[in-house]
């Protein structure tokens, strides 16, 4: 267990980083530590625990904005906005079940640093698209801000985008502003049973190419469909293709009928109504079929983003080289691939080859620490992009104080 610094406020964070710089110490930034096991194992001297920087400092539902200290629990924020009939439209996923932690853990800072989104990503955008402003301490021990508290802003470089998905390697977020949006009044899921992967991707493509405004499109192959409690759905033992509709009730009813017609050529469609619909999408969002409680916390799991129409092909290539099971989100563009045989590389060679052929990127989000040290968990880059990435890192954190090596060696 490494030593932990627990700043009380943003000023303390600045002090801690300046101290680390002077003492040539490196820091691992954590909120609740709920995603600590993602990336290359930490090689830092101390932990910088930001969980005391907690609390919503501004929430104006009618302006669609919320500002919170970075260590504010994401669960608190979701409960607060829900109380005003709103939500975080990017539907942040919860890694708790996959990594064997508590459901509902994690902070808003962690959600943004990991750019965590859910099934609604295909319609509403990712965390990065809802990240409006930040205050942070860079690896230079200086507090800086970017963005603002309004939804439309092009003043200066959009450093929020850069912070989103940087996994704490550039700066320690101290306060963030995000966009909030109205929560849909109603939802329903159109489900088609028994499709193979290729047909499912075609059905999802047809749905996404319609005016039905689909807000979630997932496919659970037969091997995983049975693990999701469906409360009355007709899919028992068969693959299940799920298409979510959200909005005002008359609209959902109307689109539901239209969507059933659109997917008819692929197979008979049924409806999963509320509240089962919410339960199903919660399971897809948090990838419950591959939860640690089901597969074990050491079973390698890859998260792969590709062009939706290449999803099925990519899964086939991986299955050809290793013992894998998988499911699709984002209309085929997001694959969660569980590798049954750890081997000496957690399937890395096979996955990387498939991604190189189909395009996109893959992250090994779960594997024993030794494997995460041995294979590159994040998508390797070509020399030019790697050098550019390193220069970006050095601009913010020239001495490598923050989470260095978490994404790639030296970054």
């Amino acid at each position, binding site marked *: 267990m490494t030593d932990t610094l627990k700043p009380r406020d943003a000023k303390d964070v600045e002090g801690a980083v*300046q101290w680390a710089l002077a003492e040539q110490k490196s820091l691992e930034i954590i909120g609740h530590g709920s995603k600590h096991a993602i990336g290359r194992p930490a090689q830092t001297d101390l932990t910088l625990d930001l969980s005391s920087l907690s609390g919503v400092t501004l929430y104006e539902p*009618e302006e669609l904005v919320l500002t919170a200290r970075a260590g504010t629990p994401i669960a608190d924020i979701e409960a607060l906005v829900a109380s005003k009939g709103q939500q975080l439209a990017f539907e942040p996923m919860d890694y708790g079940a996959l990594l064997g932690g508590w459901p509902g853990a994690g902070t808003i800072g962690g959600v943004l640093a990991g750019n965590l989104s859910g099934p609604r990503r295909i319609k509403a955008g990712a965390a990065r698209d809802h990240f409006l402003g930040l205050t942070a301490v860079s690896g230079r*021990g200086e507090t800086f801000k970017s963005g603002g508290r309004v939804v*439309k*802003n092009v003043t200066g470089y959009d450093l929020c985008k850069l912070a989103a*998905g940087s996994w704490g390697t550039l700066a320690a977020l101290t306060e963030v502003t995000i966009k909030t949006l109205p929560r849909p009044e109603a939802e329903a899921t159109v489900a088609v049973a028994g499709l193979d992967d290729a047909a499912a991707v075609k059905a999802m493509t047809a749905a996404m190419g319609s005016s039905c405004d689909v807000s979630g499109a997932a496919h659970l192959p037969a091997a995983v469909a049975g693990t999701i409690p469906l409360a009355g759905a007709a899919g028992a033992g068969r693959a299940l293709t799920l298409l979510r509709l959200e909005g005002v009730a008359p609209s959902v009813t109307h689109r539901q009928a239209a969507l059933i017609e659109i997917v008819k050529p692929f197979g008979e469609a049924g409806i999963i109504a509320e509240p089962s619909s919410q339960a199903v999408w919660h399971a897809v969002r948090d990838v419950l079929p591959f939860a640690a409680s089901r597969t074990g916390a050491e079973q390698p799991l890859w998260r792969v983003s590709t062009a939706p129409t290449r999803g099925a092909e990519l899964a086939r290539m991986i299955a050809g080289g290793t013992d894998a099971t998988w499911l699709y989100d984002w209309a085929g563009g997001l694959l969660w691939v569980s590798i049954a045989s750890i081997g000496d590389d957690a399937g890395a060679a096979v996955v990387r080859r498939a991604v190189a052929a189909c395009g996109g*990127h893959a992250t090994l989000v779960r594997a024993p620490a030794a494997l995460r040290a041995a294979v590159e968990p994040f998508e390797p880059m070509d020399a030019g992009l790697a050098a550019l990435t390193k220069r970006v890192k050095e601009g913010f954190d020239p001495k490598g104080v923050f989470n260095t090596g978490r994404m790639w060696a030296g970054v």
Partner: protein
Amino acid sequence: MAVVMPEPDAAVLGRRDRIVAALSAIVPGEGVIASERAMRPYESDGLTAYRALPMVVVLPETTEQVSRVLAYCHREGIKVVPRGAGTSLSGGALPLTDGVLLGMAKFNRIRAIDFDNRVVVAEPGVTNLAVTQAVEHAGFYYAPDPSSQIACTIGGNVAENSGGVHCLKYGMTTNNVLGCELVLMTGEVVRIGGRHLDSGGYDLLGIITGSEGLLGVVTEITVRILKKPETARAVLVGFTRSEDAGDCVSRIIGAGIIPGGMEMMDRPAIHATEEFVHAGYPLDVEALLIVELDGPQAEVDHLIARVETIARECSAVSCKVSKSEQERLLFWAGRKAAFPAVGRISPDYYCMDGTIPRARLPLVLKRIRELSEHYGLRVANVFHAGDGNLHPLILYDANKPGELDKTEEFGAEILKLCVEVGGVLTGEHGVGVEKRDLMPAMFSETDLAHQQRLKCAFDDKGLLNPGKVFPTLHRCAELGRLHVHAGRLAFPDIPRF
């Protein structure tokens, strides 16, 4: 010109003939323009108050040519200003007298249309509208729709992170771009993103979008396209008090409705546009709201009824729902012609672009009226009401001595006011040269240094579009210096476990 540009490099200007010859070897034929007369059309962009003749204009046709031009300029220490269609309203494409103006107009092909993955791959010189036109036969469209969409290019949209009236629901450029090919100042070509979502590493695409041509030159762009909504209808609502209009906007959003577009105009803007296009706007109101709902018929009908109810509750004095597509377009015709309409009632106008928290609108409008009286200049306000993006149009006459200076001073006061009430300097037009010197009103030196170090990661010699966005130019070596404050820390106060 109020803004001071970087000192021209006499050594570079002294080598002009040799530079023109070298560039002509890279881009043969008519791709290099060096005569003063032929360069004249490039001397300014949409911010016409600022003009400068570039040293030379280069119009490359291939990524390889862009790469070689930039590598040459990097080696020789020559500044480069990229340009799309030149519609920037902030002077983003203002040439430098000792710089190459790199026009991307010849990159005008659509490279791929992929309906199944819902993306279009386009060259940067393709116009915004042409992307929609290429896919509308299949019922698709590209969502961001800046007013200049008939002329402005996708490359320029990426540089400026352009918006439009549909931003609130469909996002700005940054929310609709999936990938790009980028040439760095060194000539190095990098590919970022593709037809998939999000980045496997740092979100460089998110940084490049809105970087105003300071980080690299984009040579290919992959954008997301959307299926057209089944239908769209608009409501035209008039108010005798702008406070009521602002309240109505808040209550519509508070009711959980995100309209496809929600625009507000004040009395001078209403009168100017009505005289120009006869859209049927009421003339006896202080504020006019256009609320557009789009989606399936059932949804639009349902929401229109709710918006009407909210409008009545907010003391609307008139409320008209479009009964046909023709009428909907007529409602918009006035708003879309607001700038030229104002141009008809004044010799010149200056368009501002701040964003404010919407609740501060009545206060901001009141202060703008006071400033208007103080400066003796009329103002018409158009407002992307849903997202708080305010476009005050200051009416002036450039032929009256001192009036442009007064106008710029007035404009700066408005933007500082936006920041003061919690808003920002620019919502969609960019900083460019126009708001460059106002950046310290919003950002500290430390904030700006963190942005400039990012620039150094892409362009270590500061050759790409210098003099834009940042009020002070610093050398990268100077910015990179680290000040370690050893020994004077409050560290013992921090709980340590």
